[in-house]
């Protein structure tokens, strides 16, 4: 990818807050990242670190209230999605930005047939006839590996397995050949062979259509295999970001370093007990004024408890938000 080219998606200083009965939850704080045409950005991070909330904020998918996107810019080809009208945003969703939700059961409508749900965006955004949309929907189901696709068009979501529902979500998100695909843990319910098939499909779409992709996952193996860059989130902020090979080889943030150590092995010796990072993540009732990882960090020092570190460049394209100097980076 030409590094100098303007990004398709450029997110700057995004901040999202929830108002709850017991006060505000500052779920996402000043998150910035960008995405080039055809690029795949992997997003990893602690459960509850704000990955889903970040991505849903981009295209107005969080119910407001209780959510409030309190700051930042989301530039899609230079246009700020946080400023445009709802009808404009609805046109962009589905047509230009495809979204695979983490929880397929809540985003698929239980009372509509699977086929109708895939045809819906095709009819709405692509101006296809019903017959054309049907043909395309079957083709999409086949692409994501649903056997007997034509017959399965008339099934309801509850008649599908967990992984089949997830693949229906992927089919819907891809239906209109979006410029940007945001996939929130899209393969958690898929076995490795079907996952490999989906990853191949994604690779092809990137090459053929230049689709840019954000891929949230806990599977570091997937990140290693398909991502160009990886962004690591912790406590509502980005703590490290860089090219995959570099971050895996020279992780700089203590959270990233601990995360990479916790993966159980497929080959070699089998550990008796798995490594976990001790302690709990912070509850963000206010914007953190100290490093959110300080309480669990192996390299914590005084400064970490009084000053939340800003992201700083280690190398071109690799940055970290940490006061500590990792020995290798």
């Amino acid at each position: 990818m030409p590094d100098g080219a303007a990004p398709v998606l450029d997110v700057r200083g995004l901040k999202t807050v929830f108002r709850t009965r017991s006060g505000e939850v500052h779920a996402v704080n000043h998150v910035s990242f960008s995405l080039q045409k055809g690029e795949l950005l992997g997003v990893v991070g602690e459960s509850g670190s704000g990955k889903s909330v970040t991505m849903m904020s981009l295209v107005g998918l969080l119910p407001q209230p209780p959510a409030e996107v309190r700051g930042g810019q989301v530039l899609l080809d230079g246009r700020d999605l946080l400023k445009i009208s709802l009808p404009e945003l609805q046109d962009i969703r589905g047509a230009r930005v495809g979204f695979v939700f983490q929880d397929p059961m809540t985003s698929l409508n239980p009372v509509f047939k699977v086929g109708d749900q895939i045809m819906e965006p095709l009819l709405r955004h692509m101006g296809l006839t019903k017959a054309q949309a049907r043909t395309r929907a079957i083709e999409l189901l086949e692409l994501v590996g649903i056997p007997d696709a034509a017959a399965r068009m008339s099934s309801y979501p509850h008649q599908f397995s967990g992984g089949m529902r997830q693949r229906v979500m992927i089919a819907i998100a891809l239906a209109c050949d979006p410029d940007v695909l945001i996939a929130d843990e899209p393969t958690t319910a898929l076995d490795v062979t079907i996952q490999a098939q989906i990853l191949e499909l994604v690779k092809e779409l990137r090459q053929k259509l230049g689709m840019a992709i954000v891929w949230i996952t806990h599977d570091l193996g997937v990140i290693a295999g398909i991502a160009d860059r990886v962004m690591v989130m912790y406590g509502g902020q980005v703590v490290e970001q860089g090219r995959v090979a570099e971050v895996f080889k020279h992780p700089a943030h203590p959270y990233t370093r601990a995360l990479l150590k916790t993966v159980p092995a497929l080959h070699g010796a089998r550990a008796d007990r798995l490594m976990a990072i001790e302690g709990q993540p912070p509850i963000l009732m206010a914007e953190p004024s100290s490093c959110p990882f300080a309480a669990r960090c192996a390299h914590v020092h005084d400064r970490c408890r009084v000053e939340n570190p800003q992201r700083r460049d280690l190398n071109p394209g690799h940055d970290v938000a940490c006061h500590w100097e990792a020995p290798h980076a």
Partner: protein
Amino acid sequence: MLDATVAPLVQVRDLKMHFPIHSGVLRRQTGAVKAVDGISFDIRAGETLGLVGESGCGKSTVGRALIRLYEPTAGSVTIAGDEITTMPPEALRKKRPQMQMVFQDPQASLNPRMTLAQIIGEPLVEHTTLSPDRRLERIYELMDQVGLNRRFANRYPHEFSGGQRQRIGIARALALNPKFIVCDEPIAALDVSIQAQVVNLLEDLQDRLGLTYLFISHDLSMVRHIADRVAVMYLGRIVELSPRDDLYARPLHPYAEALLSAVPEADPEQKGQRIILKGDVPSPANPPKGCAFCTRCPKVFDRCRSDRPALVEVAPGRQVACHLFQPQTVPNTSNGPGETRLQQQGV
């Protein structure tokens, strides 16, 4: 270590779960999705049996049918000596605390109008006589165990992230100290550190209380970590059931081999030899004649397209359903499902 002489806690014999397909204006039954089509296995007390296989092959259906969240079409399931499939409702209600399930879809299994404390506390209200104070104590203890902050107790499910919701489901399943838990993708939505924490917790409980698990997962590294034996399913049937180390060292069934070769490794520089499966993925409504895997098997030969291979013991403790392998000639002494099949075949 496990003792092979311990009587199995869970015994499954020829379990079938077929879902009817209705079509036409009269919604007449025109066929059936054979989600689970005749499977047999044992799980010993204190053992973890891993269950892996392609998406849609019937794993969740097995889990649900085992503890009778579905009414099985045929077959028998006994848990701690009691036949589950024919148990009358009241007896089943009394049995429930012993057998629990962590559901694959956490969102769908949590009541959106209940707070976290109410959700975890519900089975305690239903099946115990704990005082409200003792109950809250137990709820907090469970929240600590799965790494949910106590301050979240009065939040509703939608206020949690995907992984947090999954942990609510785990805490709820553990609430009544069950003997047997079906864990259906219990860690899929968790980051690796919390996965480790949950898996360590499951193992600790197993050591302390002798829990027995059916552990359904796509994560083959995690299955290798937690399971004693692993069953590999394909299209509603078990194609291989082997002790963990044997399976990972040398998978016998060609599907098991392909599955293990496809695992992505957390190392951008390592790209292993993947067996990419080609050919049509069959539908459980219309499975191929012969071996269900014959449409995609890289080692297929004529016989596979006409005869269905039975699951037979081909090496001590290893059962495989594939024409490439011959049944062990030395009869096995255990009374496992493998042997029954061996006799059926007249071997």
